[in-house]
């Protein structure tokens, strides 16, 4: 395990950034990552199954939804790992209950990411943690210094003139010790954000971002990372995965947004992706069988993605048993669930280690759970 200092690339402050993308609504892992060699899959989904010839083949078992093709490069470069049949122990199939349990990390106060950030040495950055959107997601409850960001303007020094700022800087220049250092760091961050806001952002390496909210949010996160403001954790949601009806249409647009957003971000960051991890997760997957409304209903296991530096990508992690022997969803039900063979915490734990987490703190981050972290990193 490399120390944070050892892998510094372009990131001047040596910090690593963890971005959590939550697919709200229960994303269908079997549409995102179809088991294209499993006949049971096509029998369960005669109309909705992703055909082998349109899927983007990943290995001898799975493909990607065709709209996720922009992620193929990351897979081939070994930067994208996938865990299938992944989810939580929550059996309710209620969006609210399942999201809550997953974001809290169990029946426990605060969010797993918020508690994780609290276990860390005091954050030094002025902008260590950002939630893109209108509200604080549950996973960040209890985080120190978290900012709900709707635009980069939220970070300006409240419309104050340069004169006022100069006087403030003059006052803090007289401070020695912790307060003086913290003030100097903060003024640096403000200057970098101002510089960033004053000119039109040009993504690097020829990347272009789409104009939807998800891509815009990711672009702003990329800007913050490049501005070295000390961003350590961020969350961003992509909503609307609850595909009970006409799933193909619904997922068509969502998968495109997901893949183009992530691919643009990765391209834009270039080498700096080595210091960034993006985790894509959802509260549950969906029924194996399609329903009569060309949709799927609330299920259990889904797919989880880990994209970023150091991950042993280009492969699947965790357990997979195929769709041959499934548990019926209930007595008399003709629906079956993909079982949760891989608990989401076992995916998050190694990611947190990568981001400086200490295993002795995991009892606080994921209490009352026997962790068996997946070997996502070499």
């Amino acid at each position, binding site marked *: 395990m490399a120390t944070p200092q050892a892998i510094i690339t372009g990131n001047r402050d040596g910090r690593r950034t963890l971005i959590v993308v939550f697919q709200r609504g229960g994303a269908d892992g079997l549409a995102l990552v179809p088991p294209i060699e499993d006949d049971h899959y096509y029998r369960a989904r005669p109309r909705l199954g992703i055909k082998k010839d349109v899927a983007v083949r990943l290995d001898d078992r799975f493909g990607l939804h065709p709209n996720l093709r922009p992620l193929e490069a990351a897979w081939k470069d070994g930067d994208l790992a996938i865990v299938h049949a992944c989810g939580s122990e929550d059996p309710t199939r209620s969006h609210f209950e399942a999201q809550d349990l997953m974001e*809290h990390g169990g*029946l*426990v*106060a*605060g*969010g797993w990411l*918020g*508690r994780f950030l*609290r276990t860390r040495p*005091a*954050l*030094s*950055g*002025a*902008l*260590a943690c950002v939630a893109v959107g209108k509200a*604080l997601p*549950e996973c960040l*409850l*209890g*985080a*120190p*210094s*978290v*900012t*709900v960001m709707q635009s980069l303007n939220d*970070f300006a*020094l*409240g*419309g*104050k003139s340069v*004169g*006022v700022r100069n*006087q*403030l800087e*003059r*006052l*803090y220049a*007289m*401070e020695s010790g*912790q*307060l003086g*250092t*913290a*003030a100097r760091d*903060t003024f640096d*961050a*403000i200057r970098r954000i101002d510089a960033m806001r004053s000119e039109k952002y040009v993504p690097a390496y020829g990347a272009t971002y789409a104009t939807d909210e998800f891509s815009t949010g990711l672009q702003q996160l990329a800007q913050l990372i490049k501005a070295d403001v000390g961003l350590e954790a961020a969350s961003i949601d992509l909503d609307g995965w609850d595909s009970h009806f006409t799933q193909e249409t619904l997922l068509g647009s969502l998968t495109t947004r997901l893949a183009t957003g992530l691919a643009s971000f990765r391209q834009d960051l270039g080498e700096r992706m080595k210091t960034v991890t993006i985790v894509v997760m959802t509260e549950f997957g969906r029924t194996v069988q399609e329903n009569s409304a060309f949709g799927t209903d609330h299920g259990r296991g889904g797919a989880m993605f880990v994209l970023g530096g150091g991950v042993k990508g280009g492969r699947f992690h965790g357990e997979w048993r195929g769709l041959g022997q499934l548990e019926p969803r209930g007595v008399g039900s003709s629906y079956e669930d993909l079982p949760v063979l891989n608990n989401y915490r076992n995916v998050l734990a190694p990611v947190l280690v990568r981001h400086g987490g200490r295993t002795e703190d995991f009892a*606080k981050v994921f209490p009352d759970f026997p962790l068996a972290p997946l070997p996502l990193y070499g």
Partner: protein
Amino acid sequence: MKRRAFMAVTGAAAALAGCGKSPKQIRNDFRRALGKPTAADLDGPFTAPASATIDDASHVLARLTFGPRPGDYARVARLGAKLFIEEQLAPEKIGDRLCERVIRHEFGSLADPESTIFPRGKDENDPLQMLFPALKDRGARVGDLYEWKDKVLLSDLTRATILRAVLSERQLYEVMVQFWSDHFNIDPSKGDCKWLKAADDRDVIRAHALGNFREMLRASAVSPAMLWYLDGRANRRSKPEDKPNENYARELMELHTLGVHGGYTQQDVMEVARCLTGWTVREKKKFFKGRVEFKKYAHDDGPKRVLGVDIPAGFGAGDLDRVLEIVASHPSTATYIAWKLCRRFIADEPPQEAIDATARAFTESKGDIRTTLRALFATSEFWAPETRSAKFKRPFHFVVSAIRATNAETDASKQLIEFLQRMGHAPFRYPTPDGYPEEATHWKSTLLWRWNFAGALMDNKINGTRVSRAELVRKVGMDELVATLLGRLPSEDERAAFREAGDLAVVIASPAFQRC
């Protein structure tokens, strides 16, 4: 209609109306109900600190309150710092009508705890009380809390906490409420704590904040919210193979009493957990939900040994009081509580002499909090020059002190809470049982948002919070205002910087105002 149903219906309607109201409407409602604004009248005298260093009056205002309002310095200087301490140690003798009425008017869910903690006579200005005399003591039953939406309760608790800190004349009491809220921290986002924390705030923290530590500890041990938060409700031994849940037992010793190095062992944790088996809370879906019960069949009634003291078999529910007596009277508890109090009131790394004196008072008074604080405030370390203005205000203190110093009116609504959230210090949002940290190191990354808050406050850009800047400067005077904010005269450098900036926000954002 039964009283409870009546309260629930009217309360729910008020809550809904509250949700839909703009901050301006809420503030206007306050004014209508109270007949005047919630900020104090600026009628002076505004004698300001006139010393280049922090004098006694400024020092006690900085440490015992959430910051002085214009006029407070003059009053405390006249009264004398020591008498001010005595005054603040007797909150029941302090009239606090404005604050109490705001809380009663706006937060039906909180069931008016002041009326029982600080009993008062008839309030002829309270129409509800005059119509229904029984409402004078309308402490709600715990189960009634479930009739509220959890989000309404959290918002009410948060706003009431901020408003009390801003408005209350019982400032030391509010400071101690915050201290114990951290000490016995419960994050409402876990399970039924969403509803039950409101009762804990009322019946544990507020009821005993300046009372007796042992009584507070007892109340906390059987607080339904605490039984939820630290899993005491699941600590049972119905079958011989049941393992006790030791979560509460551990935190009871590590955080609430002895402290982590207080001299208990893993064996003690197990034994305490055994003593507390059987105490549980009725769940949300049942009748009498939220009620705390002792289930004899789930209690391990064998003999136990806690911190060297034998507890014979067969005491049943009585084990609880035996255990609390043992841990509360342990010498480590006195030292640990004294250390925490000294850290809050003296310095992040408090001098040992002050801790010893405070611990002695705690032990001799059997946990009387007023006696303990009186001893702390009498130490020479509390008054030492190097103590003064050397603590870094936590964000809540910073925000409230800015509102108080500028005589701002506030309804403590969403945008103000968002500022606190950005600084990581909104009330009732701390996930783990150790409570918000006290030391400066944890808060140094909040400067950007302190500066932004200072600007937003002075430019009236926070919805629901309003500073009458021109009136403030006209009535108080610019120099007096600056001296009140700093607690002393500005230095030459400060004076020059403030003059050139020409903006009061810079004073609030300045290093000196971050300290207390």
